[in-house]
């Protein structure tokens, strides 16, 4: 796996936090929804990565 792919993890974390901070005011709600968004996004990226890996074989 190329190093650049790993960049997606902290980048997704940052985007999730900023996006959820702009949706809610309560710190607990921001953190909870950001964690959920992060997990969903990473899962989607991993699924996409695996599909592309399979197709490129």
């Amino acid at each position, binding site marked *: 796996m190329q190093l650049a792919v790993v960049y997606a993890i902290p*980048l997704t974390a*940052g985007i999730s*936090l900023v996006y959820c*901070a702009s*949706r809610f*005011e309560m710190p607990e709600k*921001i953190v909870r929804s950001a964690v959920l968004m992060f997990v969903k996004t990473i899962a989607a990226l991993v699924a996409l990565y695996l599909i592309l890996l399979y197709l490129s074989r």
Partner: protein
Amino acid sequence: MKDPRVRLRNPVVAALLAFAIPGAGHWYQGRRFKAAIYSVCILTIFVWGMILGGGQPVYSQLIYRSEGMAPTAQLQASAPRMKFSFGYAAQVLVGAPAWPAIIQEMRIRNTDARIDWIDGPIESDFQGLLSSEFGDRTSKIVTGTISLNPANEQGSSIATGTLHAVLADESVRDYSLGGDIKLGREVFGSPRREVRCFVAGQDDEGREVRLQLEGSVSRSFVDWFQAPRDTLELDRLNGALSQNFDIGSVFTWIAGLLNLLAIWDAAEGPAYGYGDEEEIPDDDEPTPAKKTD
């Protein structure tokens, strides 16, 4: 969505502060937790992008060479033709960290480039080519240090100086410089400033000949940081940094676009409300069927 519990103070001032520095608008409103999230996340992504892109992903204009006789855009005396870089429309939203690009653009627009003029002494490392002016034009790759001085203190179109050269075969030679000089624009989005001048040297048979020196010296940070550049410089960056330059550019765009959310939040408050409201079930969810006896 406006919630009475969210204190926006003066929303216009807060939005302007949020635009200037990510998180500053929320700090002004006393929303410290969100201020920390915005400033840390957005500035980290921006700085990370800058590091990946060798400090050069941010620029407001791309320069095109419009003078047929000039070998490159840096060595063009007339005002350069510039085209807006669309990436900057996203980058500028990050605020103050991207503002130097506007100052550099103004410096290029408002300053006449005197490419055949040297104002003061230049001491720098050098990399370039040394070639014979006439004949077969064989060139040698040269690195080393260069010392250039104007012919008089007020500045001159004639430069003198020395070149301490290391040739490709690792032999070291000192050359005297003299004659007309061409020096790249002072402000330009490249850490290297092009220089062309003449060198007094000897050919392979020991005869005195005039050689031409073409290469670059280092440009000061304040003269290249976020300044408009040409496609040659972008090619050099892509060659030197490969995909990292593009990834770094995208990171700086993302940082700017994320700050747009922060500006909106500072002006209007959180989009979905405070966060402790009861969740309204989706209309699409099937309602349980009522039991009938």
